[in-house]
């Protein structure tokens, strides 16, 4: 799929809470067909402190309106600047980038696990799975109830379970301690979130013989396989998160 560089118009910047906002972007030309797990490289503003592009997952796509969404967590200077953009502003993007999540086998029982900004690619993945006849369970972890994003769209995909670190909503504790893991039996888990969380989930999956794909969030410069900054150590040597990933089967990783 050809990658493009393009100025996209922000048709909506919607603030969800203190942490998260959603940008809906409209393209001039017809959108290419995106795959769940793919990402874009966003040019923030070219100012000295946000010199490099920021990788952000594709959160949702609407081919009918020729728009797509990014769900962004404010974690630093670049994401903060993006949160202040107004409707009608333009944003320069390189997209679509990276590989994608793989479809599970028939009749498999699936769980999607997301923490922090890792929930972003899971809406697109969830919708994709649903349109292919799967009904995945969904488990999200947030710091507290004030940081939880709107869940309606996820509820249309499958059952949604929550953890918060302070117990203000859902089960209390880290995502990996949710009771779903002691009760449920899943054939495949898709996971995206902080490194420590993905490693814990991968460990659980290995121990219980569950297939698992994770979407890594390595630091990137180019996003197109040119700089070799985003590498991950795999059984096949160093691979680039930006072109060989961001999605990896945990059997490939040396976790």
């Amino acid at each position, binding site marked *: 799929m050809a990658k493009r560089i393009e100025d996209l118009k922000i048709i909506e910047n919607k603030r969800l809470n203190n942490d998260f906002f959603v940008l809906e972007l409209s393209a001039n030309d017809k959108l290419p067909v995106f795959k769940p797990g793919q990402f874009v490289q966003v040019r923030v503003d070219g100012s*000295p402190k946000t*010199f490099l592009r920021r990788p952000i997952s594709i959160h949702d796509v609407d081919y009918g309106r020729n728009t797509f969404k990014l769900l962004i967590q404010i974690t630093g200077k670049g994401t903060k600047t993006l949160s202040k953009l107004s409707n009608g502003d333009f944003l320069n993007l390189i997209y679509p980038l990276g590989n994608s999540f793989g479809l599970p086998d028939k009749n498999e029982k699936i769980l999607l696990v997301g923490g922090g900004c890792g929930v972003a690619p899971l809406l697109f993945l969830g919708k994709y799975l649903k349109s292919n006849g799967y009904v995945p369970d969904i488990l999200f972890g947030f710091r507290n109830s004030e940081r939880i994003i709107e869940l309606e769209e996820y509820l249309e995909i499958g059952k949604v379970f929550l953890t918060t670190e302070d117990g203000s909503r859902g089960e209390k504790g880290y995502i990996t301690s949710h009771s779903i893991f002691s009760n449920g039996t899943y054939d495949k888990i898709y996971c995206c979130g902080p490194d420590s969380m993905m490693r814990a989930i991968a460990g659980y999956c290995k121990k219980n013989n569950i297939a698992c794909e994770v979407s890594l969030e390595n630091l990137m*410069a180019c996003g*197109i396989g040119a700089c*070799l900054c985003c590498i991950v*150590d795999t059984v096949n040597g160093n691979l680039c998160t930006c072109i060989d990933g961001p999605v990896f089967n945990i059997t490939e990783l040396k976790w």
Partner: protein
Amino acid sequence: MVNLGFSIGDLHFKNPVLTASGTFGYGPEFDDFLDVSRLGGIVVKGTTLEPREGNLYPRMAETPSGMLNAVGLQNKGIDYFEKNIYPSISGYDTNIIVNINGSYVDDYVTLAERINTLDKIPAVELNISCPNVKMGGMAFGTNLDSAREVTRAVRAAYSKILIVKLSPNVTNIVDFAKVVEEEGADSISLINTILGMSIDVEKMRPALSTITGGLSGPAIKPVALRMVWQVAKAVKIPVIGMGGIMTTSDALEFLLAGASAVQIGTASFIDPQASIKILEGIEKYLIEKGFSEIKEIVGYINRTK
């Protein structure tokens, strides 16, 4: 029509805009964004005799107007290059230059001999300035005797165009330029990255796995420009300037300071089309200023009083 062409020895370049090693992959990474064959040349990723995995993650840190990298010459080695990469890029209608690296003088010589046999590679860039490897690399480029020895040895073994890439991490770069010119280099390219460092104060540890790394991007441009100007005045062979070039005007500064050509590095990460935009910008500038050849502006500031 303006004539953008220039030559190093008997090798003609259709224009003075090349891409810098380690920032443009092998070319195909950019096929979706530009016609690689329009460039004056591409310098492909640093290549070694044996495959190398490079340094551990994290190998990149963003810094104000730039970035630190500690990639450490990750590449699949010359055998893989010759068998798998070379056939897929030799169709580009531009000068493909291989950036060669080694731990010992013999490594450089063997690599140069191997590349001498590849018809579609008219030049090598001898990298004696990589700050991110334990052995070789910058060690050759920061000691005059070593720089002399490796240039002499490669010159004896390699008959095509030899470009030597200098390190800025020295007290007097002109001394190095003169030494490699004396030893028969056809051209000098500079600068490689400047040794730097960054610390994550939240995690209270260095941002890079290697602690130090190479700084590139606009942050280094004034230093790079000064060094290019110094070297261009001191040697007779053509100089290829680089370091923080993001725009046409940046590139023009290097040409006016005395560089015969420029390489575009980190800019390609921000805008994969930067090299072509700069090429178009240079042409437009020449037309607007009423020049008919790129040569007329090379070293312009050194000629006028």
